[in-house]
């Protein structure tokens, strides 16, 4: 039954100046990269990736997430999901590239894959040091390369620059990525240059979350980000002509990057 399950917030952790993790009183059997529709009664309902089986990590970027950040322990939220495709562990050596809040699905993938003995290198980027997410969790299960735009920690520059550098010296079986679409577009281009398969977690405005309303359909084949995605392999991504170019707003109007 596709309807929200009401959960209670057990604990709230401040991960960074803009990101909070909300731990709820119920476990979901999710796969890394899958998302849920979170419902704040009276406010709105939006898609968020799981940051663990019983938590969501949310960056304050608009009205809904502002309202989420105002929640207190004991408050309730509705959870509908898990939905969508997920990161698939294939190969022995994987490079993960995460930018900003894109670290959420990536950390769950890296943690999960590492359990299978896969060797993982994570490139984790953020604007500045205090916006870096899940440092401890990443360090525990992967070799961690840190990038900040302002150089306040680790490499000064974009994750994609770091990625190019690393790929000059090392070979990986698979690349997975989540972050700003412009960044991911570059990650995909670089992966293609090196002929390495890539999995990308996309984001679009969603309404139904279950592949019927057509809101998150992407050009030219009408793939649904909510159902055919959010995680796409590079092959399928080739049919998403709008990737890195534009998205659509709630009315369906195109918004160019």
């Amino acid at each position: 039954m596709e309807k929200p399950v009401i959960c209670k917030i057990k604990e709230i952790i401040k991960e960074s100046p803009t990101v909070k993790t909300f731990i709820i009183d119920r476990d979901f059997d999710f796969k890394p990269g899958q998302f849920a529709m979170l419902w704040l009664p009276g406010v709105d309902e939006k898609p968020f990736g799981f940051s663990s089986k019983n938590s969501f990590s949310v960056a304050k970027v608009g009205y809904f997430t502002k309202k989420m950040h105002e929640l207190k322990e004991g408050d309730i939220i509705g959870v509908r999901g898990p939905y969508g495709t997920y990161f698939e562990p294939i190969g022995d050596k994987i490079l993960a590239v995460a930018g900003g809040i894109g670290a959420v699905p990536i950390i769950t993938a890296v943690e999960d894959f590492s359990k299978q003995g896969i060797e993982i290198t994570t490139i984790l980027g953020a604007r500045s040091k205090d916006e870096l997410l899940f440092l401890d969790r990443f360090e525990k299960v992967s070799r961690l390369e840190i990038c900040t735009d302002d150089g306040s920690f680790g490499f000064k520059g974009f994750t994609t620059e770091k990625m190019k550098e690393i790929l000059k010296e090392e070979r990986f079986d698979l690349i997975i990525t989540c972050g700003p679409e412009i960044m991911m577009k570059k990650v995909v281009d670089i992966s293609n240059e090196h002929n390495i398969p890539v999995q990308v977690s996309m984001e679009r405005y969603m309404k139904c979350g279950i592949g019927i309303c057509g809101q998150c359909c992407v050009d030219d084949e009408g793939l649904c980000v909510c159902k055919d995605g959010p995680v796409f392999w590079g092959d399928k991504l080739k049919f998403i002509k709008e990737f890195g170019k534009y998205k659509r707003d709630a009315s369906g109007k195109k918004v160019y990057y």
Partner: protein
Amino acid sequence: MLEIDICGIKFKNPVFLASGIMGETGSALKRIAKGGSGAVVTKSVGLYPNPGHKNPTIVEVYGGFLNAMGLPNPGVDEYIEEIKSVKKDLEKMGVRVIGSIYGKDEKEFMDVAKKIESFVDAIELNISCPHAKGYGATIGQNPEMSYNVCAAVKDVVKIPVFAKLTPNVSDIVEIAGAVVEAGVDGLVAINTVRGMVIDIKAKKPILSNKFGGLSGKAIKPVGIKAVWDLYENFDVPIIGVGGIMSGEDAIEYMMAGASAVQVGSGVYYRGYNVFKKICDEICSFLKEENLTLKEIVGLAHR
């Protein structure tokens, strides 16, 4: 064996995509066309861009979905670009496009109809959306307003015009009478049935619009009854919609009087190729019973 002609338009089969499902973009229409539909009905398009209601806009209930999307669409000008981007692909597959449109009055309906006319094969007037105040059912629950909108659109376009009716009225035959008098070429029945779901733990209606429209298996008997009544009273073609999941459901609608059917929620339950599946099931039935498609339309009345 499934080809049909409605108002002079040839359709390769009588199983269409219902408005409101997927059709937000051109590429979504194309994907449905690949799933085997005889025609695709667009999202309802208005004069200006409209983001629709806030989420939650949909929730599953026993036997279907309750939704209150609130007519999201990018406005007719931008939407025409969406249609243009896939028009050739659809033509190649022999799939017709029916433009669903809405407006707040006959003027808006006319403007949208005129703009969209050359990009679609027929127009479907949404005078039945239950959850967009001032639009949809606000018009379609009132015989006079319904007449005015239909007559106005008929005045300005040459392609066939269908009116989609709401079941949320005391007497659907009264409304249908008004729109037939206004000259519409066909009737589409039914739009969703108004309803509400409250989450007892959140202690609030789930939909942001509070109430919405019920679709899916739950409403099939309501649609069958509506199509039956329309067939008893009018001579124009009827397109049946509401809870059609299978060939059997489609045939039930046809026996009640529908010349073609539309599928909405069925896309969720049986996939994007539900159209192909339903067509196959209709064919099996026709062969088994040694009947033609034409013969089953209205058969239960005889």
